[in-house]
């Protein structure tokens, strides 16, 4: 693996040089050089500096909660693990940090629906007209998780996190298929939000606390954030070790 990545580095710095040569960065006329003028030296520094590379991994202070209660967090961890479980391919949602991802997302714009139109009046619409509710995502999670707990208690007399995997699947299926009667929100609407944010947590840049160690990307051979694919674009399938946005910033 170490040899591989060394080779990869060599290949990349070669292709970078080649790219610089072929792309005509020294532009005549108006200057439209692009962001890459400042990008490349940064990258060169990180990949070629063994000191930076061998440093101890600093403790990750991001693994704390911004919105969920401890109970909610445990439930989200358990539920998302059922949506995207650990298997032979690699880690599941829990080990990928998906619950942290969702927690952190709920604390910002997304959780408050702050870039969405939330003005009244609110009317029930046709399905093709999209979401017309007044609840914001953090409220939907609060209510949805509470109802998930209630349903578990009603059906199995246990908290959701204490259920077996099969029982948890059963509870989640009831939500996914609208087999739970709720007055405040759509059970499948909540489930779909849980499902889509699970995939976001699995596959977004590790910057957002999910996709830990880029393991989500590695499982499906997704190379993450690469500067260029000119060398492979017209070739047969090629596996490239992933890079994250952090790799572009230097240290």
């Amino acid at each position, binding site marked *: 693996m170490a040899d591989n990545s060394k080779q990869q580095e060599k290949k990349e710095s070669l292709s970078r040089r080649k790219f610089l040569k*072929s*792309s*005509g960065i020294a*532009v*005549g*006329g*108006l200057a*439209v050089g*692009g*962001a*890459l003028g*400042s*990008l490349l030296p940064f990258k060169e520094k990180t990949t070629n500096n063994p000191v930076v590379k061998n440093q101890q991994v600093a403790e990750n202070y991001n693994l704390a909660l911004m919105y969920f209660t401890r109970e909610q967090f445990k439930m989200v961890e358990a539920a998302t693990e*059922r949506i*995207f479980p650990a298997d032979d*391919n690699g880690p599941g949602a829990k080990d990928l940090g998906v619950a942290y991802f969702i927690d952190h997302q709920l604390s910002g*714009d*997304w959780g408050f*629906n*702050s*870039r*969405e*139109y*939330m*003005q009244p009046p609110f*009317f029930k619409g*046709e*399905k*093709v*007209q*999209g*979401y*017309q509710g007044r609840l914001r995502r953090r409220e939907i999670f609060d209510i949805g998780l509470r109802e998930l707990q209630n349903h578990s208690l009603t059906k199995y007399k246990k908290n959701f996190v204490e259920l077996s995997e099969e029982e948890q*699947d059963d509870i989640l299926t009831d939500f996914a298929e609208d087999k739970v009667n709720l007055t405040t929100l759509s059970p499948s609407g909540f489930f779909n939000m849980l*499902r889509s944010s699970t*995939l976001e947590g699995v*596959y*977004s*840049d590790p*910057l957002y606390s999910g996709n830990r160690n880029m393991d989500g990307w590695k*499982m*499906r051979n*997704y*190379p*993450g*954030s*690469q*500067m*260029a*694919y*000119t060398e*492979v*674009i*017209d*070739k*047969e*399938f*090629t596996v490239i070790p992933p890079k994250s*946005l952090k790799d*572009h910033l230097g240290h």
Partner: protein
Amino acid sequence: MAKTLPKVDVVIVGVGWAGGIIAAELTKQGLNCVGLERGKERKTEDYFMMHDELRYALRYDMMQSLSKETITFRGNERIRALPMRQYGSFLIGEGLGGSGVHWNGQNYRFLPYDFEIRSKTIERYGEKKIPQDMTIQDWGITYDELEPYFDKFEKMAGISGEENPLAGKRSSPYPTPPMKTTPALEKFRKAANKLKLHPYNRPSANLSEPYTNPDGVSRAACQYCAYCERFGCEYGAKADPVVTVIPVAKKTGKFEIRTHSNVRRVLKSGNKATGVMYVDTTTGEEIEQPADIVVLTSYVFNNVRLLLQSGIGRPYDPVTGSGVIGKNYAYQVQKGNATGFFEKEEFNTYAGAGALGMVVDDFNGDNFDHSNLNFIHGGSIAISQTGLRPISNNKVPKGTPTWGKEFKANSIKYANRVLSVGGQGASMPFKHHYLDLDPTYKDEFGDPLIRITYDFEEQDRQLAKFLSDRCVDIMKEMGADKIESMEELGPYDITTYQSTHNTGGIIMGADPSTSAVNNYMQMWDADNIFVVGATAFAHNSGYNPTGTVGAFAYRAAEGILTYRQKGGILA
């Protein structure tokens, strides 16, 4: 009381492709232009952290915040229109360069058939071929008349491509050669050839090689990084207004751009505009900018909304079919497609470029016989390799659950084993598809939102199914082990992304009673207002619209310069 600024020659509302082109062409000829842009300043250096699917593709970082303004939608007049509270069907850009910054760069010319659609349809099939409520009309211009402007736009942008045997005649070849061909595209080409179709590399604004345009702007070649649509290009390799026409306009010293400037009204006196009123969104101050000529170059919805709430032009009446502002709203029939699962092969589909693709036009426009078909027009059919990003691309064969163990296993197994062939269907206008002001919902200033009344028609359902079947034919020939395709179009749904190809509302034509602007995009009812963009499309073709919008902008610029000298209605 609004502050009034000194008068300028031209005020441009919205600085995207159309606004940028107009600014470059007018300032080169010495006119003083002010560009009002409601969003923020942008430059290539801002795209340093661009490869972020969550932030840009799913949280819509480059798009207008819907909290400030959105549209309302209903399928027909019997339904209450409700606001589009979250993004779905299309995305509304804002900021310098507009949607031109985060487009894919798929650059086409509409077909000769498009511009004379009514005459040519009647000529070949008779008048009965056109359903009663279908309001297609000729555009008041021909492909041949537009050709020089297509050429100009393509040379400015450096479009990469190769001859398409089924398109209109070109006066010169593409400025740069086609992009690279990938194994997936090669499969499509072979299959299409075998089916006796005419495949060609998609015309691309992602440069295949370094290029210097006639304005002296040099740009680097595309790196196939796979982050085009919804993203800005960190190389400047994708033609966008910020790296092409805007710097040219700025260099003249005659173009002043004011960002964070949201125009609320076109001001008028009698039959002429006197300027615009806008809000500086950083201070809340209302400002009047007087001008000799007003050019509206914002997106389709805002161009229409501005005219309607300024009381300019004759609003469209869907009952009588009279009036023109808001008429012939059209969209795109995007869902006719086929997905192929390949068991024995993986592809580098994580890599790509926005416009990287292979296309056939054998079923587009009137390139095929419609005598026995229940629709007119058609669509381009293409394989695209824009880059499959992992959050949004988790295709699994039918029968796989949408979550859990099996979903995970299959979504990973097929992550690099899925190819899609898709049709981009034309969209015909109907009498009851239109834009007007919503009676209930307001924007952040208290102005009414624009309301869309639109649904798919039998024409669209037939077309989508036809395109879907053709996509399946090609996918079979490509050797997919499993093929899934669209069975039924269903109603128009604003929640799923289809395309940001909304058109019409201020359409172009030769007759002032049925069109809002002439073929220089000059308003029949106010000769010093030019409305430039896809608003002028009398219907939408089976292609991406930007190439044709670009040509229109060059045409309009020429018209504005003539008007500046001679005055009066141009056409």
